[in-house]
């Protein structure tokens, strides 16, 4: 425990506790469509709702895979009628599974 806060002295009625934990995470189905517009900008449409900033993460992964500036990538969330099936946003899975789909689409 090399963190400086671990060394702060404690006063009366104060205590310090340490704990560790793990969690299996989710995989599951994801579908995305990636297209390149005529002005060179990239559009990503995925079906996973954005609760933690996943649209930005999809854009970052696509920009790095394709070698284009981050600003030229637009990331949107579509509904299930427009795009393939996406499993729920939960289980810590969106950046993992939907991101994987984005990178595979970019590699195509």
């Amino acid at each position, binding site marked *: *425990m090399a*963190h400086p*806060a*671990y060394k*702060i002295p*404690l006063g009366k*009625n*104060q*205590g*310090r*506790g*340490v*704990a*560790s*934990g*793990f*969690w299996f*995470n*989710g*995989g*599951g*189905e*994801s*579908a*995305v*469509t*990636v*297209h*390149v*517009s*005529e*002005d*060179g900008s990239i559009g990503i449409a995925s079906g996973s709702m954005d609760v*933690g*900033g996943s649209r*930005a*993460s999809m854009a*970052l*992964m696509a920009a*790095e895979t*394709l*070698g*284009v500036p981050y600003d030229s990538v637009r990331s949107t969330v579509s509904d299930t009628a427009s795009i*393939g*099936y996406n499993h729920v946003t939960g*289980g*810590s*899975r969106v*950046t*993992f*599974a939907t*991101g*994987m*789909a*984005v*990178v*595979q*689409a*970019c590699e*195509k």
Partner: protein
Amino acid sequence: MRASGDDLGCAARSCCLKEGAAHLTDAALGDKSPLSLKDIAAKRAVTGGPIVAEVALNAGGQAPGFSTQFCDVEVDPETGAVKILRYVAAQDVGRAIHPSYVEGQIQGGVVQGIGWALNETYVYSDKGLLENTGFLDYRVPVASDLPMIEALIVEVPNPNHPFGVKGVGEVNIVPVMAAVANALRGATGVRQHALPMSPPVVLAALDAHADEVVGV
């Protein structure tokens, strides 16, 4: 690749996409300057239509997440109220694509865990009706209850993902209850055995162990 091949006048297998532009890989075809994705896209109406790819997959190979945390608490011996003074959470996130969002996920999970540890429970009447149905009585932690939660990002990439991503949103809730309980044990000398460790519960435990308690 087919599109860049058409523009450069050669087979698709002789091109590769590097740094956002198509380069010729076969030196025998001569030396042409790389064609950027933007230039290829601009000509697509003529060379063959829109550039689109679609992928639908069932992702496997997700890796578990690990989190280690410590916290300092202060207990008010007269009311049993517990105040979190400092909180540090370190987590293995695989690869943080957007680091400040990942820190937000870690902080959010810790807050959920603190709520579970200290306050959140359903209170039922003896007729089985839920009594605390609103957020005033089902008390979740708010910003004024908490210190700044320091989030430390540790990156051990997941080999099964192109960017090494692991799920980050849930594992940080797991150790919180144990860390808070351990800190409470340090502060009061009394080990709690049930959640939540709300003021009435802590006070009752302090009173029951009044002769053994240290630091009060």
